[in-house]
């Protein structure tokens, strides 16, 4: 199984990338018309669409909090997104990621500005090829921004991994399955705060430190793309209004 070589001696990965090279990323803001905000991300073959509804009245009402908004999330995989068809019912993994992603976004959102309301963030994985939770977080903060919800900073995420003993950036599915570690990291890039951190695999203390550093660099790149995507959306809106 894991006997295949995922990293050549001169540091080239099976898809031709270098160890610190991200997959091709595409972001687009505002595709969906019947929600408060939306964003689409492609990271390699991983494809995700996020919609935000709200801030809106809590329903049922007992969910509401007097002093701040409640942030709700859903991380969900389409049945056709995986190699084997996935049942549409939420798996234990999806339930866990829903929580982890919510806790990655919460520190950034100024929830106290919308007491008694609910903000819903729905993340749908349309094609899964590793890195879905991190790409989901990256897209979710774009959708929140488009919905006009004030944030301390965007939240940006990427996974780092370990192949043949080397720390590498942004695993694809093959690398995730056969590699030695997978560590998704989300940050508020401007203020250098980690909001999501998980690890499956085996890292030494040194590798952990290196992994966080590699993640930070990847997050910087993605953060630039996020800002660009928002600018494009904004100018698109301006353009549209001028027409």
């Amino acid at each position, binding site marked *: 199984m894991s006997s295949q070589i995922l990293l050549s001696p001169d540091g080239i990965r099976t898809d031709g990338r270098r160890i610190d090279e991200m997959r091709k990323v595409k972001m687009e803001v505002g595709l969906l*018309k019947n929600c408060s905000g939306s964003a689409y991300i492609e990271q390699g073959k991983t494809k995700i669409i996020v919609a935000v509804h709200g801030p809106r009245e809590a329903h049922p009402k007992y969910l509401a909090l007097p002093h701040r908004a409640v942030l709700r999330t859903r991380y969900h995989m*389409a049945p056709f997104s*995986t190699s084997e068809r996935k049942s*549409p019912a939420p798996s234990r993994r999806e339930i866990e990621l829903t929580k982890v992603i919510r806790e990655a976004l919460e520190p950034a959102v100024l929830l106290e500005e919308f007491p008694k309301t609910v903000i819903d963030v729905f993340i*749908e994985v349309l094609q899964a090829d590793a890195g879905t939770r991190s790409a989901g977080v990256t897209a979710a903060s774009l959708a929140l921004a488009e919905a006009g919800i004030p944030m301390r900073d965007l939240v940006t995420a990427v996974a780092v991994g370990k192949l043949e003993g080397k720390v590498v950036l942004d695993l694809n599915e093959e690398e995730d399955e056969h590699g030695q570690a997978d560590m998704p990291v989300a940050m508020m890039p401007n203020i250098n705060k980690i909001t999501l951190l998980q690890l499956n695999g085996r890292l030494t203390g040194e590798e952990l430190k290196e992994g966080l550093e590699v993640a930070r660099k990847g997050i910087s790149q993605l953060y630039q793309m996020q800002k660009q995507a928002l600018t494009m959306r904004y100018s698109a809106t301006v353009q549209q209004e001028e027409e």
Partner: protein
Amino acid sequence: MENLSSIDATIPFRQRELLSLLSTGQRMDGRKLDEYRQVEVVHSIYEKPEGSAVAKIGNTQAIAGVKVELGEPFPDTPNDGVLTVNLELLPHASPSFEPGPPDESAIEMSRIIDRGLRESKSISYDKLCVIPGQKVWIVYVDINAMDHDGNIVDTAGLAALAAVSHSTLPETRVEDSKVITLEERKPVPLTQLPVPVTVAKIGEYLLVDPSLYEETLSDVKVTMTTIESGVVASIQKSGSGTLDVDEVMKIYDLCYQKGNELREHVKSSRNGGGKH
């Protein structure tokens, strides 16, 4: 939804306003009564499923993915493959959609699309048989309604049809009662293009492709799935209004005529660049 709209006091007013417009042959968005919004279909948008497509009708959008698995046939049709259609109303699509298992409406819409594909006999189920009575292909058609501005059924039906019509299956060989999956692939055997067309009745007016706004003001919709020959393979009246026989026949004419238009959209759909 039914409950909410029922207590919306503005409905009678808005209904009167719309009826007066309809009496001039116009709709709120400038369309004629028998006119669809802009239709766009792109197939093969993903690499992993055996087939996929996105369909847009105006601001309504649905995505379909096709997966196939080897499985057992039903005992009463041992030589036929199996089709499974499932529609999810993603919470993305509308502020009124809740996450969770499909509700009554989602199940009804799934079944309308399922029956259209099934009853039209458009898929050659016998060609999905690998070992009679033991192994057949199970074709899962999963549809996500992503954006809801009215007429989800037609949009989802288009996406499903486009996805199926560009799906492929691996060729197989049977050795010692074991199925061996080969590299070569063949298309899912589809012989016709059944498309659902939905007509809403508002007052005495019949409107094709109702927008969300129009759906709110309509108390009965009819979806008919036709094929090229004019045969109707599935009908569903939905909503608590009524119809008379003449109206049903007018609806049939509309559905067949508009079905031909939609079939052209499927035939001419663009390749999205994923696996086809």
